[in-house]
């Protein structure tokens, strides 16, 4: 087997060419052995010119990966040929192993690991900010251009006039952070009449069917998340990643309310981010002392529209359409939150007004003399210990999804509280239609 090794510190690139069978595996193993001895921790294996892979090759890849992982590094595979990918898939490697379509993607993955390791090692030197509600530690992130991507229109929900023609479908991915109204199912009858609050986070889709049972339904696709389709009448997703990552600890053990926390985030955004325009998208791994939930009780479809022609949030309809918790529904839980918040004191005219208003409305349980407009959905799990020095949001969220005992999913009222949180923040630059969604079912 032809093996070319190139060092682009601190990443080692190994390009293979030929047949990755027992003979090839022997050569590659020797080459890995040399590299690992010289202390390399980050290895990318380019498989573009490998058209054959047997279990001997798999064993060498797996054992090199495990050795590097123990040393605090990683091994990523890039540019797999279809037959080789089938072998990796069959061996169950593709879901757990870092495999990328291109070298560039593998390099970004490695750079992320290297950055995370640096921040863990230099934890005490990271920038901090202390506000009345608590303290924040900033974990630097690469720059990103964030957008809110929208399917549907909030008015169609508020007037309960969603029809099958309004529905959109969308495949969702590991890193899809979105909230909205929707469901899962292949047949329209399975979900359309019972659509409810929904969230996608950490590669899962959770929704609260409005079938009267008040029991969330969730799905964690085992294989390729891109193959699962969610159905939605209204969905808002955070695109472009999180340009800010903060670890929050509240000053009081009772935690800070969502409202207080968002105000602090807006304050920090105003001082730290010249590109802050008034709207933030967030994803939070949170320890929540108390969760106050709310939920829509019916699918807001045309057939169920209120007879009086008013919004479902109108005082004459609201009791029939929404549940609001007067006392905490859950206490001391771990939650994964995805949400959006508007700083109503900011000048919001810079956003495309049509798209902006397709997303935001004043939630019925909240007063109108307020400075923030929040929309947060959360998935709750039995309390898990908060990670020691969390530096990677996707990784920590995935860990909760994999290890947590699922309890519930709700729309969060703003008086819900957070004691500790790992908060990813997108400084939203624009609102636009979601290109991943397509009309139809």
């Amino acid at each position: 087997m032809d093996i070319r090794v190139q060092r682009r510190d601190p990443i080692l690139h190994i390009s293979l060419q030929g047949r990755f069978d027992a003979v090839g595996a022997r050569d590659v193993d020797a080459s890995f052995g040399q590299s690992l001895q010289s202390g390399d921790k980050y290895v990318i294996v380019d498989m573009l010119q490998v058209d054959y892979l047997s279990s001997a090759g798999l064993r060498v890849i797996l054992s090199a990966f495990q050795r590097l992982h123990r040393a605090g590094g990683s091994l990523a595979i890039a540019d797999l040929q279809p037959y080789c990918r089938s072998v990796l898939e069959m061996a169950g490697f593709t879901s757990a192993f870092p495999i990328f379509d291109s070298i560039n993607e593998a390099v970004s993955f490695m750079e992320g690991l290297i950055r995370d390791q640096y921040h863990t090692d230099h934890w005490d030197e990271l920038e901090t900010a202390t506000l009345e509600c608590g303290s924040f530690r900033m974990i630097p992130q690469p720059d990103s251009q964030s957008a809110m991507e929208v399917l549907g229109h909030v008015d169609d929900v508020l007037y309960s006039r969603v029809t099958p023609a309004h529905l959109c479908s969308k495949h969702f991915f590991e890193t899809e952070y979105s909230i909205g109204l929707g469901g899962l199912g292949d047949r329209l009858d399975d979900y359309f009449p019972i659509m409810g609050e929904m969230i996608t986070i950490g590669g899962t889709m959770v929704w609260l069917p409005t079938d009267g049972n008040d029991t969330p339904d969730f799905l964690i696709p085992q294989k390729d998340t891109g193959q699962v389709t969610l159905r939605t009448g209204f969905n808002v997703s955070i695109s472009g990643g999180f340009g800010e990552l903060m670890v929050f600890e509240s000053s009081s053990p009772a935690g800070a309310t969502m409202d207080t926390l968002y105000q602090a985030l807006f304050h920090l955004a105003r001082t730290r981010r010249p590109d802050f325009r008034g709207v933030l998208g967030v994803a939070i791994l949170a320890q929540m002392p108390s969760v106050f939930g709310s939920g829509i009780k019916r699918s807001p479809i045309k057939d169920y529209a209120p007879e009086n022609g008013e919004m479902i949030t109108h005082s004459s309809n609201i009791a029939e359409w929404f549940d609001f918790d007067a006392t905490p529904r859950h206490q001391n839980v771990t939650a994964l939150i995805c949400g959006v918040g508007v700083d109503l004191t900011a000048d919001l005219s810079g956003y495309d007004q049509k798209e902006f208003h397709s997303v935001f409305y004043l939630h019925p349980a909240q007063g109108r003399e307020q400075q923030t407009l929040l929309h947060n959905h959360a998935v709750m799990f039995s309390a898990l210990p908060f990670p020691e020095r969390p530096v990677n949001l996707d990784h920590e969220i995935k860990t909760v999804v994999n290890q947590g005992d699922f309890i519930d999913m709700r729309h969060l009222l703003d008086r819900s509280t957070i004691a500790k949180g790992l908060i990813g923040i997108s400084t939203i630059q624009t609102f636009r239609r979601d290109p991943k969604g397509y009309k139809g079912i």
Partner: protein
Amino acid sequence: MKKSTENEAVFHACINDVPEICRVVTEAARESGMDDKGMWKLELALDEACTNIACYGYQNNCEGTIRLHWECRGDDFYVTIEDEGLPFDQSEPTDPDFSSDICQRKAGGLGRYIMRKFLDDLSYQRSDNKNTLILVKKLINTEDSD
């Protein structure tokens, strides 16, 4: 019309010879009308079987032999592999543990798993200090799951 072939070959039981074994047998399978995907699966299963014989059966000494015989019976392509190495591990094969953490996963058993997954039938016999493996692959793949 599918053509029936009947042939035999003897090879050194050496991992360096495995690609040639695969080439000769898959070429015969192609002449019998096997499709590309089937040939690739047969090749991988053959590779796993012969590599196992060379590495474990003969302890990598390259002194033993592997005798192959292949033929078409109806829609099936049969490959019989004989060797005089150590007996195969006949413990009940278990599937690789897909649920376990990739960092802890054991790599053992993958070769046997690939053979069972990629063939339509696989049987093994030990008699007279001889191992006999029979691999069966349909000429035309009907399932499209892999």
